[in-house]
């Protein structure tokens, strides 16, 4: 293993109009590591993820994948980079005009790595890996429950065996048991493929299950990074307030009090 981080962010800054969302993000993610980023709603977690994926352009800073700068890269380079990424979206983001198997095989079909005839079988295999029966493949996404949609989303994200997988709030909106099922699936899939994972969440049970390392984002800055084991006694008042879920502390929610 070399010491070059898989993904490296330096001074990434992004604002929408006058609203500063990412101030100066510095973060290194090592190859094969599972990094979990925690932070409150509106702290800039999703925006950071979208900057790495190239869906949003940061105002300044540098983002490197395998040591190569991705900001300002050509479209074909971006496409090449994205083909080694997988992403599980918060709401699943399944294409509702397509059936489940078309969703799961979408990336592989788009890259012409499998034929349309092979696709249903391929999708069923991937669905089995996330614990779904083969008959699910021929339903439409609207017919599935929230937990099943998340699992189909996971199957789609891992279908092309990506080297890096992003998880955007994988357990939001699920009951605690289904959340745990999803967490375990994520751990299994990531370990099995040896992939690098970056998860953003505000669910502490996810952190404890998935993470190798954790980081906390607050007001557009990474204010703490460390191993998962350290998180409970890191001595950082912001982190402690967050993981214990207290309304009192250094983090003040912007609520008008009468």
């Amino acid at each position: 293993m070399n010491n070059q981080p898989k993904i490296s962010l330096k001074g990434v800054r992004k604002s929408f109009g006058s609203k500063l969302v990412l101030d100066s993000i510095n973060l290194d993610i090592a190859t094969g590591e599972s990094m979990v980023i925690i932070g409150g709603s509106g702290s800039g977690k999703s925006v950071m993820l979208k900057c790495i994926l190239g869906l949003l352009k940061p105002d300044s800073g540098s983002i490197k994948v395998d040591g190569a700068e991705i900001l300002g890269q050509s479209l074909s380079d971006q496409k090449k980079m994205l083909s080694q990424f997988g992403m599980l979206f918060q709401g699943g983001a399944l294409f509702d005009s397509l059936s489940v198997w078309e969703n799961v095989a979408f990336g592989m079909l788009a890259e012409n790595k499998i034929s349309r005839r092979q696709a249903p079988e391929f999708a069923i295999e991937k669905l089995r890996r996330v614990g779904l029966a083969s008959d699910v493949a021929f339903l439409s996404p609207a017919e599935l429950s929230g937990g099943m949609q998340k699992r189909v989303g996971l199957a789609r994200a891992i279908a092309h065996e990506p080297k890096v997988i992003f998880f955007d709030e994988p357990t939001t909106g699920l009951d605690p048991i289904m959340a745990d099922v999803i967490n375990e699936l994520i751990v299994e899939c990531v370990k099995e493929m040896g992939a690098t994972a970056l998860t953003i969440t505000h669910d502490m049970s996810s952190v404890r299950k998935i993470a190798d390392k954790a980081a906390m984002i607050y007001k557009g800055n990474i204010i703490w990074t460390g191993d998962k084991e350290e998180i409970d006694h890191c001595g950082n008042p912001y982190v402690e307030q967050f993981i214990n879920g207290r309304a009192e502390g250094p983090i003040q929610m912007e609520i008008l009090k009468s």
Partner: protein
Amino acid sequence: MNFLAAIGRSFFSFLEAAGKIGIFTLLAIRHILTPPYYFRSLFHQMMVIGYYSLPVVGLTTLFTGAALAVNIYEGGSRFNAESALPSIVMIGMVRELGPVLCGLIVAGRVSASMAAELGTMRVTEQIDALTTLSTDPMKYLVAPRILATVIMMPFMLVLVADIVGVLGGYLIATAKLGFNSGNYLTSSIGFLEAIDVAASMTKAAVFGFFIALMGCYHGYNSKGGAQGVGVSTTNAVVSACILILISNYVVTEIFFAV
């Protein structure tokens, strides 16, 4: 002073919107012309836009043709010009009413549904998901929709609108106004020139382009949740209708100005 500032602001936002639409248009055209092509999606859109719009387009123009015949008969009888009815219905329908009515109806039906569909895909992150699955959303979503509308408007919808509109006039003229069926047909067909049909189909293609462009542009750039999608749907239909009416005058001027 504030009044002037308001004028300036709205002028700048107009320029900004015009620029954005211009860039979107150029991008869309480039994606229509360059591979990969999504034929499956193109045929699906042609079916949805063309075939399924036939009933409403046919109904609208049938009754308009009938009303036109009644009006012209009554108006013409004031200076003994009833016999001009077949040719006026033909010219009015083919040059003007067929394409414009068809355009407005299809704008209501197709622009709205494109804006709502793409808008929902935008706010549920499905468009982002496409990018992460090695698929360019402009190519996969926008290009087939625009191309399908530009093909189906002249070669199916307006053709049918013209024919059914003339048929509406013919039915009323022969059944109620005492025209001889053979004479009616000879005099209306004899009056029709190739340039009338060419103008009709040119209008149809231009209208089709604006219908799909506005639907896609407003949907693609939707913001916020359900309300944002609602706003972009309204904007799509209104802007498509305005562009149809303006371009109708321009094309008429190009074809028939003396």
